[in-house]
């Protein structure tokens, strides 16, 4: 009896050690970014593991437009692009996901396959033709030139995440509502939409994050006025020429990442469910 208890205790300890190793490996680089972002630029390469020479100067530098950076504008741009892409993908994708999870019909497998295929599409394959097209019609650097290409990967993600969620819906309730005299539209709005709201919300978070993180297309099609945060960070210039502004970049990185980390903390369970819904079926 005590032998079994001992073995279980040893196993728990081993699990805990592994868990701590995993957490440290995942969080340490992020922690290092935050610590450095508060460190005086003169002590950039200080190796003290905790905050030293604490200052907010790096944040002032990161947000300043004096050295040709536009982080504030870039944050706004990423918000505009992310919200637009998410709204379009949800409006169009929700009805498609409803049909794909609700009805059986010939060609459904092909449609699902096409949508999966679309989500695997390499961004560079879209880039050259869009670059040419947007140059010709004068859209280079406009918001629509950044929003439209992102639909190509956010919309498939939206549809297949929602389909795997909606498959689990209690569809009988809709039937019951119809029998009670609801029109299909009413049943959808009053019964199904509230039930599907958590799934739609989760999908919206995933869609927004994937838009927020996009870099390849934005780096080629945006201008200084419309560039999103990823592009702003990658091309960040410092206060001195030929000197990498490490601490200011760490501050900028922290500003860009903190909203996402807050989302993750708040909706950890949902995000995990949404991420895995597309890949694994019960």
């Amino acid at each position, binding site marked *: 009896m005590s032998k079994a208890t001992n073995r279980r205790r040893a196993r728990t300890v081993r699990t805990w050690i592994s868990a701590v190793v995993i957490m440290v490996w995942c969080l340490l680089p992020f922690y290092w970014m935050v610590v450095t972002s508060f460190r005086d630029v003169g002590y950039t390469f200080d190796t003290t593991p905790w905050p030293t020479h604490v200052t907010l100067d790096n944040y002032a530098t990161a947000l300043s437009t004096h050295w040709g950076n536009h982080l504030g504008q870039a944050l706004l741009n990423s918000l505009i692009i992310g919200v637009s892409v998410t709204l379009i993908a949800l409006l169009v994708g929700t009805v498609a996901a409803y049909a794909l999870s609700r009805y059986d019909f010939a060609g459904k497998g092909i449609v699902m396959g096409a949508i999966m295929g679309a989500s695997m599409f390499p961004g560079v394959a*879209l880039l*050259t033709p869009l670059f040419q097209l947007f140059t010709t019609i004068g859209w280079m650097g406009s918001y629509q030139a950044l929003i439209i290409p992102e639909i190509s990967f956010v*919309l498939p993600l939206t549809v297949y995440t929602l389909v795997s969620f909606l498959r689990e819906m209690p*569809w009988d309730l809709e039937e019951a509502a119809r029998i009670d005299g609801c029109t299909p539209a009413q049943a959808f709005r009053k019964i199904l939409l509230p039930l599907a709201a958590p799934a739609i919300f989760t999908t919206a978070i995933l869609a927004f994050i994937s838009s927020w993180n996009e870099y390849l297309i934005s780096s080629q099609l945006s201008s200084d006025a419309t560039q999103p945060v990823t592009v702003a960070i990658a091309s960040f210039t410092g206060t001195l020429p030929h000197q990498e502004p490490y601490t200011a970049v760490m501050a900028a990185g922290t500003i860009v990442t903190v909203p996402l980390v807050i989302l993750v903390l708040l909706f950890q369970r949902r995000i995990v469910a949404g991420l895995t819904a597309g890949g694994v079926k019960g």
Partner: protein
Amino acid sequence: MSTQTLGGARRSGDAPHGGEPPRLGLQDAHRRRVRNAWLLIAPTLVLLAVVIGYPIVSAVIMSLEKDPGLDPATGFFVEGGFAGLSNYSHWLLQQCNSSGGPVPCPPGSLGSQFWPSTFTTLFFTAVTVPLETVLGFWFALIMNRAFRGRALVRTAILVPWAIPTAVTAKLWYFIFAVAGIVNSLLGRQILWTSDAWASRFAIVVIDTWKATPFMALLILAGLQLIPDEIYEAARVDGASTWKTFWTITIPLVRPALIVAILFRILDVLRIYDLPAIFGGGNATATWSILVVQQMRQGANAASALSTIVFLFIFFIAFVFVRFLGADLIGRGQKGKDAS
């Protein structure tokens, strides 16, 4: 009623089973649902056709055309025209244009970088995906155990996933700086961001850090589908932990594992952000980077290259779905019908 006639008219080709009245009602209802389903899916398909279909078709067309420019033979400016497969042979067979016809691409030109970039891309894929699979499996096994603080681990591993790749690249650029923390800890002066193999190694480490969480979560979802009773039975039968892992866990988690591996392979084959921002020059120039560099020098050759990449990616996906049984659409085909 009008909807029924419409539905009937659309499917007038397969009329033979229209006789019995009760079946007719059911069939009409079914037809109406099918038509509604297509109406609801149509906006998505139209939008995807515009944002993906149009670019891919025009990329293929562009890849078969010549770049407009000076004709090497006559010296006149020409407007392109049909190029056959010369843009493809430019990359695959290393044939660059010159006044005397095709010659091997000179060293240093973008054309000559095709095979090196192929090596780099495949190297990243071959090294990071197995690493991420093994580490991801370990993460997943830990998170699948019941212990206090499990939610904490799950939140922690979402952090690398949530940080934008652009920020990740900059963050590790600092960590791998010459005077950075890695060199301080090692007591060395390795040029992680410019030396060929050091920068490749750094990118492998960074990509593994960033992508292992996603892998782990997909594998975890697969692990959670395995009923506890099976493990219980194995323990009663006296199977060792090792044997249980190989004969129960691995086979049962295989479908989720294959999908996760496929997702990661496709992601690494199109990798751009990390090497483009982190650095390493030609040593870390992947296919995607080469396309972007080529885009401004000659859009038609760039289109040919992006088409090669796209065909290769679809070939890999096809192999996985066809021969390894990756179930991407899964139960999507077995959704319930309202009737």
